[in-house]
């Protein structure tokens, strides 16, 4: 599966996405900025709405109460006008090191717990997000749901990928 994950060709430094065990997804990426700035981009709704999600999606943030017990809710709207809602609760906010929040993709079963860790080294920041599901089926279902949006344009890259597999 790790081979499959390397399929992205979009950037010089793609995010590392791995499935370390049955119920988790781990996403890691390094940014050219100190961690207080990166942390702010994750927690300030004005900044978050400028980067979260694909470019062609619109994002609206209905609620974002950044403290333990606070609720958050945002919506992605794709080019067809289809809305994808996400919501959850912040569990831990340790500025600028750590965010723990629950995460629900509306319409999909299973809540995940997401822990984002911010590490700074020489002015750069590595963000490691660990997304933990209660059950393996929920993780797999969530990952599978990404397929539907990708059926149109995913196939070109998929064909290339399959050439390396087969």
């Amino acid at each position, binding site marked *: *599966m790790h*081979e*499959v*994950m390397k*399929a*992205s060709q*979009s*950037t010089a430094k*793609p*995010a590392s*996405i791995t*499935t370390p065990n*049955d119920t988790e*997804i781990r*996403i890691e*990426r390094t*940014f*050219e*900025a100190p961690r207080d*700035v*990166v942390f*702010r*981009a994750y927690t300030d709704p004005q*900044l978050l709405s*400028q*980067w*979260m*999600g*694909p*470019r062609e999606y619109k994002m609206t943030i209905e609620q974002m109460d950044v403290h333990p017990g606070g609720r958050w809710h945002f919506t992605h709207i794709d080019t067809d006008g289809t809305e994808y809602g996400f919501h959850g609760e912040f569990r831990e906010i340790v500025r600028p090191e750590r965010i723990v929040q629950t995460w629900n993709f509306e319409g999909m079963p299973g809540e995940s717990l997401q822990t984002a860790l911010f590490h700074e080294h020489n002015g750069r920041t590595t963000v490691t997000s660990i997304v933990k599901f209660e059950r*393996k*089926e929920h993780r*797999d*279902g969530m*990952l*599978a*749901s*990404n*397929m539907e*949006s*990708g*059926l149109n344009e*995913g*196939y070109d*890259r*998929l064909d290339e*990928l*399959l050439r390396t*597999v*087969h």
Partner: protein
Amino acid sequence: MKDDTLSATFQAVADPTRRTILARLAQGEATVQELAEPLPISQPAVSKHLKVLEKAGLIERRREAQRRWCRLQAGPLREIAVWATEYQRYWDESFERLDELLKKEKSARQ
């Protein structure tokens, strides 16, 4: 696609031994014996893994004289490959946008 198909595929590729077998079969058909040779497990254990892979539709098995052959069926892999590339695309594109935003934030500070 049905969820149960995807779950079976995930379960099948979640095991490192089975991934090793699939990687070997990606290079071409092989006999059970050839597959078992480099693995540090017994042949019955290998057969068990092959059964899981066959049930998930990832391999096809056939008999020829005394030999048992296995061949890769890449169809189900295609399905998980689609989500993998899409999930990756979502985050890569988000992070590229974050790169741009951070650059702006940094220059605004200076």
